């Protein structure tokens, strides 16, 4: 099914990612917070509290003994443990067609993932990356840890 549709999907994706690169579009929401968690958006830095929306390119940073849980618009669940830095490098999702693309980076710390609708419809358009590797997914839950990674 997916293979048959790949060409038109690729075309749609191109258009979608372009359209969704607009600043300010909500890509997800903070659902759980424990301890000190902040969101960095450009030069702004704000505390993460339950109910705060996230945007593309946001960086989520947790302190010692802190953790955070985020649900993206396609039902992807992300959670990060203490001393983590997670970056939402790309997120585009059309809730009418389930077509989208996402790329999430873990610079350091720990990240647990339960993938959502985009990974189900087009797994090839979803990736998670560490400082050294790129993780591709097929309808998946996993944990990833980066010990001694970058602070930036």
């Amino acid at each position, binding site marked *: 099914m997916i293979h048959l549709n790949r060409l038109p999907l690729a075309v749609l994706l191109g258009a979608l990612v372009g359209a969704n690169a607009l600043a300010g579009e909500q890509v997800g929401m903070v659902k759980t917070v424990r301890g000190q968690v902040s969101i960095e958006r450009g030069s702004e830095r704000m505390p993460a509290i339950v109910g705060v929306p996230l945007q593309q390119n946001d960086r989520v940073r947790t302190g010692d003994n802190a953790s955070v849980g985020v649900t993206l618009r396609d039902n992807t669940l992300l959670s990060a443990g203490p001393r983590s830095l997670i970056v939402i490098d790309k997120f585009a999702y059309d809730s009418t067609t389930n077509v989208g693309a996402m790329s999430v980076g873990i610079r350091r710390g720990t990240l647990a993932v339960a993938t959502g609708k985009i990974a189900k419809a087009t797994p090839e358009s979803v990736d998670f990356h560490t*400082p050294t590797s790129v993780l*591709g997914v*097929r309808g998946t*839950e*996993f944990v990833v*840890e980066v010990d001694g990674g970058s602070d930036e």
Partner: protein
Amino acid sequence: MNKSLLASALLLALLAGCANERVILLPSADGRQSAVVVRTGGDELLLDKPYAANERRIGLNIPYQSNAAEVQERYAATLAAQPMRPSSYTLYFMTGSNQLTPASEAEFARIKSEIAQRAASEARVIGHTDRVGSAEANDRLSKVRAERVRDLLVSEGVAADKLEAVGRGEREPLVPTADEVDEARNRRVEIAIR
């Protein structure tokens, strides 16, 4: 791996700040087969069994079999922070009307209370149609159905900014049919809460 490749792998690891990394595939919540592919430079490693794991140390992949105990020990705090799983309900309409069936009326009450109880809840109301009429007309009709249910939730006190109404037309039938077939089970509205 020859010596120069090994040397460049080690150099790469140094450049990357000597980060040690670990990936563990977890059993999926729905019990389905799943997998993670770890790509590093030209290497590709497939983790496709529950608790299949890879540790990356000084530029080398060390695949191993992890287990629930290790996951608990290392990642309890991370997994405890995971948001509540999304849930999904489906509402059906009486033939030829926008009146919910009695079973769906009861479901509607459960949906309201779940939206109220979840922390920072959001819901997507997704309309579907059967295959009678053109695909374009069904896109519009499914959106109208979704908006009707959204308005019903708002009139019952659910905050409008938590709700998004979308129409998925005839592209996701519950019961697959040929084109132009009148199928009540496909005339539905799904409410996905997250």
